[in-house]
C-alpha cells in the first residue's frame, strides 16, 4: 500500500472509522486520548497533503477505483489543503486542550459519545473539503452537521437545547436547498462531478433551472456559513455550546460551507454563465458589507463574552465574502488567507475564554473582574489573539486585512469606500475587544469570590501556543500565503 497516494482518502477515513471505536472506550480518559491521537494524526495527514500540493498541483483520488464522473472522486488542491490545515489543526488543538474543560462540562458516562461525535464532525468537514462530487459533499455536510448538533447540545445550560434546535432547523433547510440546487444542475447536465459539471454546464441551452440552482446553492450554503442575514443561529449556538466545542466550530465550521460556496461559484458557475461574476458580486458584496458593519456594531454592545465573539465571527465571515466578491486574484487570496488567520485568532480567543470559563461560572463582562491578576497568562493570550482579530500589524490578522485592502483598491473608484468600511470595522473591533480587555484588567473583582488560580496547564499551554502562532504567522506568513495564492490562481483558472 503506497501511503502517499491514499492520503486524500485516509484524511477522511481515519477520523471516520475511529469514531465508532471511540464509543467503545468507556474507561475514564481513554476516549479523550484516543480522539486526540486521531485528530493529531489527521493534522499530520493534512500537513503531508499541504506539502504535496504546495507547488500548485492537484491530487486526485478515485474512490472504489471507479473513474470520475462515474465514481466519486476526491481532489486536493492548494485551497483545500489550506482549509484542511485549518480544520484538522483546530480539531487537534482544541482536543489537546479539551480534557479539563470537558471533564467539567460533560458527565463521564457521556464522554465517549461526545468524543466520537467530535471525530465525526472532523471527518464530515474534511470529507466536504476533499470531495469533488456535489452529492457526496451533501452527505458529508450532513455528517458534520448532525455531529455538531450533538456537540453543541452537550452544553450544560438548558438554553443550549433551543439554540441547537434552531441550528438544526436552519442547517437542514440550508442543506436541503443545496440538495435542490444540485438536483437541478444534475437534471440539466446529467453529472454530479464538479469538474464534469463545469465542462457540461456551458452546453446547457435552457438556462432557467441552472440560474435557480445557483440561487438555491448560494442561499443554502450561505445559511450554513452564517452569512448575514442568515446568521441568526450563530450567537446562541456558539454561546451555549461547551467551551471547547465553540473553539473547534468557531474556527472552522462555517468556513467549510464558505469553501463549498466559493468552489461552486468559481469552479462551476463563473465563466460559464453570462455575467455571473457581476451578479455574484452584486449579491454578495452588499451582504458582506452589511454583515461586517452590523455584526460589529452588535458586538460592540454585547454583554456576554462568548456572544460578543460570536457576533464578531459573523463580521469576519463578511470579510471573507468581501474578498471573494471582488472576483480577482488579490481578493481571493485575501479571503483564503483570512480563512486561515481568522481561525487562528478566533480559535485563540475562544481558547482563552475556555480558560476563563474554567474558573468563572458566569461569562458576562461585568462578572469577570480581577481576571488579569488571577489568570495573567490567559489574559495575555487573550490580548494577543484580540490584537490579531483587530488586525494590528505584527499579528496574523494584519496580513489578511492588508491583502484585503490591497484587493479593494484594485477594484477601481469604489475601492476607497471599501477601504473605509474595512478600517471602520477594524475600529469597531478595537472597541469590542477593548471592552473585554478592560473588564479583564481594570474591573474590580466581585466581592466574596474565593481566590482563584490559572486554568489547568494543559489548557493554558495550547492557548499560549495558539497566541504565539498568531504572532508567528504575522511575521512569517509564507506557507499559508503561498497556499492562498495558488488557491486563488486555481480558482480563477477554474472560472475561465
Amino acid at each position, binding site marked *: 500500500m503506497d501511503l502517499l497516494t491514499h492520503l486524500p482518502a485516509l484524511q477522511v477515513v481515519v477520523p471516520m472509522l475511529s469514531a465508532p471505536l471511540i464509543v467503545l472506550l468507556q474507561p475514564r480518559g481513554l476516549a479523550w486520548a484516543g480522539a486526540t491521537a486521531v485528530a493529531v494524526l489527521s493534522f499530520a495527514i493534512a500537513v503531508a497533503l499541504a506539502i504535496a500540493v504546495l507547488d500548485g498541483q492537484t491530487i486526485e483520488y478515485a474512490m472504489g477505483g471507479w473513474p470520475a464522473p462515474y465514481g466519486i472522486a476526491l481532489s486536493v488542491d492548494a485551497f483545500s489543503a489550506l482549509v484542511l490545515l485549518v480544520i484538522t489543526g483546530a480539531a487537534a488543538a482544541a482536543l489537546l486542550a479539551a480534557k479539563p474543560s470537558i471533564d467539567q462540562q460533560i458527565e463521564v458516562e457521556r464522554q465517549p459519545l461526545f468524543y466520537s461525535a467530535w471525530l465525526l464532525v472532523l471527518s464530515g468537514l474534511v470529507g466536504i473539503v476533499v470531495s469533488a462530487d456535489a*452529492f457526496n459533499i451533501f452527505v458529508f455536510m450532513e455528517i458534520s452537521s*448532525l455531529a455538531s448538533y450533538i456537540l453543541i447540545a452537550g452544553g450544560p445550560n438548558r438554553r443550549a437545547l433551543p439554540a441547537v434546535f434552531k441550528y438544526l*432547523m436552519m442547517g*437542514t433547510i440550508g442543506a436541503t436547498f443545496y440538495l435542490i440546487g444540485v438536483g437541478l444542475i444534475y437534471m440539466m447536465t446529467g453529472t454530479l462531478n464538479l469538474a464534469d459539471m463545469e465542462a457540461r454546464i456551458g452546453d446547457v441551452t435552457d438556462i432557467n433551472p441552472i440560474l435557480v440552482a445557483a440561487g438555491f446553492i448560494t442561499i443554502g450554503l450561505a445559511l450554513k456559513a452564517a452569512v448575514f442575514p442568515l446568521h441568526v443561529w450563530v450567537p446562541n449556538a456558539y454561546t451555549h455550546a461547551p467551551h471547547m466545542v465553540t473553539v473547534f466550530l468557531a474556527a472552522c465550521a462555517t468556513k467549510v460551507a464558505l469553501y463549498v460556496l466559493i468552489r461552486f461559484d468559481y469552479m462551476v458557475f463563473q465563466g460559464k454563465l453570462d455575467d455571473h461574476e457581476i451578479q455574484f458580486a452584486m449579491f454578495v458584496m452588499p451582504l458582506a458589507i452589511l454583515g461586517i458593519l452590523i455584526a460589529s456594531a452588535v458586538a460592540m454592545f454585547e454583554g456576554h463574552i462568548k456572544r460578543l465573539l460570536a457576533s464578531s465571527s459573523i463580521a469576519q465571515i463578511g470579510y471573507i465574502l468581501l474578498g471573494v466578491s471582488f472576483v480577482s486574484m488579490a481578493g481571493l487570496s485575501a479571503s483564503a488567507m483570512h480563512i486561515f488567520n481568522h481561525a487562528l485568532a478566533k480559535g485563540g480567543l475562544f481558547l482563552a475564554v475556555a480558560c476563563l470559563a474554567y474558573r468563572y461560572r458566569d461569562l458576562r463582562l461585568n462578572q469577570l473582574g480581577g481576571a488579569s491578576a488571577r489568570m495573567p497568562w490567559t489574559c495575555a493570550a487573550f490580548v494577543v489573539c484580540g490584537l490579531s482579530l483587530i488586525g494590528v500589524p505584527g499579528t496574523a490578522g494584519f496580513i489578511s486585512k492588508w491583502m484585503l485592502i490591497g484587493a479593494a483598491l484594485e477594484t477601481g473608484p469604489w475601492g476607497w469606500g471599501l477601504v473605509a468600511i474595512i478600517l471602520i470595522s477594524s475600529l469597531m473591533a478595537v472597541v469590542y475587544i477593548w471592552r473585554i480587555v478592560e473588564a479583564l484588567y481594570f474591573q474590580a473583582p466581585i466581592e466574596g469570590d474565593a481566590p482563584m488560580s490559572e486554568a489547568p496547564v494543559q489548557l493554558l499551554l495550547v492557548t499560549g501556543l495558539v497566541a504565539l502562532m498568531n504572532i508567528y504567522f504575522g511575521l512569517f506568513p509564507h506557507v499559508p500565503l503561498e497556499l492562498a495564492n495558488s488557491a486563488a490562481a486555481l480558482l480563477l483558472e477554474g472560472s475561465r
Partner: protein
Amino acid sequence: MTFLELLGYFNYWVFAIILTVGLYAVINKTNLIKKLIGLSIFQSAVFLMYITMDKVEGGTAPIIQKGVEDQIFSNPLPQVLILTAIVVGVSTLSLGLAMVVRISECYGTIEENEILDAD
C-alpha cells in the same frame, strides 16, 4: 402539449407546493414537533423532485433481466441519491425529536415563544 408533458409539469409543481407547504410550517409554526413535521415534508418534496427526473418513457425499474434485449430502464442514479437522502432525513428527524424531548423536560413546553419567554 401531451398529457405526459402536463404530468411532468404537474410533478414539478407538486414538488414546489409541497416544498413551500413544508417550509411554511417550519417558519410559521411555533410548536417544535410541528416544525419537525414541516421539515420532513419539506425534505420529502425534494425526494419527489429527484425521483421525477429519473423516469424514462416506457422504462422500468433498473433491474437487468438476463436474456431480455432492448429494455428501457429508468435512471438509477437519482434513486441511489434519494435512498441516501431518506436516511439522512430520518437521522435528522430523530436527532431533532430527541432535542424536543429534552426541551420539553427542561422547559415544560414545546412552544417556541414560551421557551423564549422562559429564559
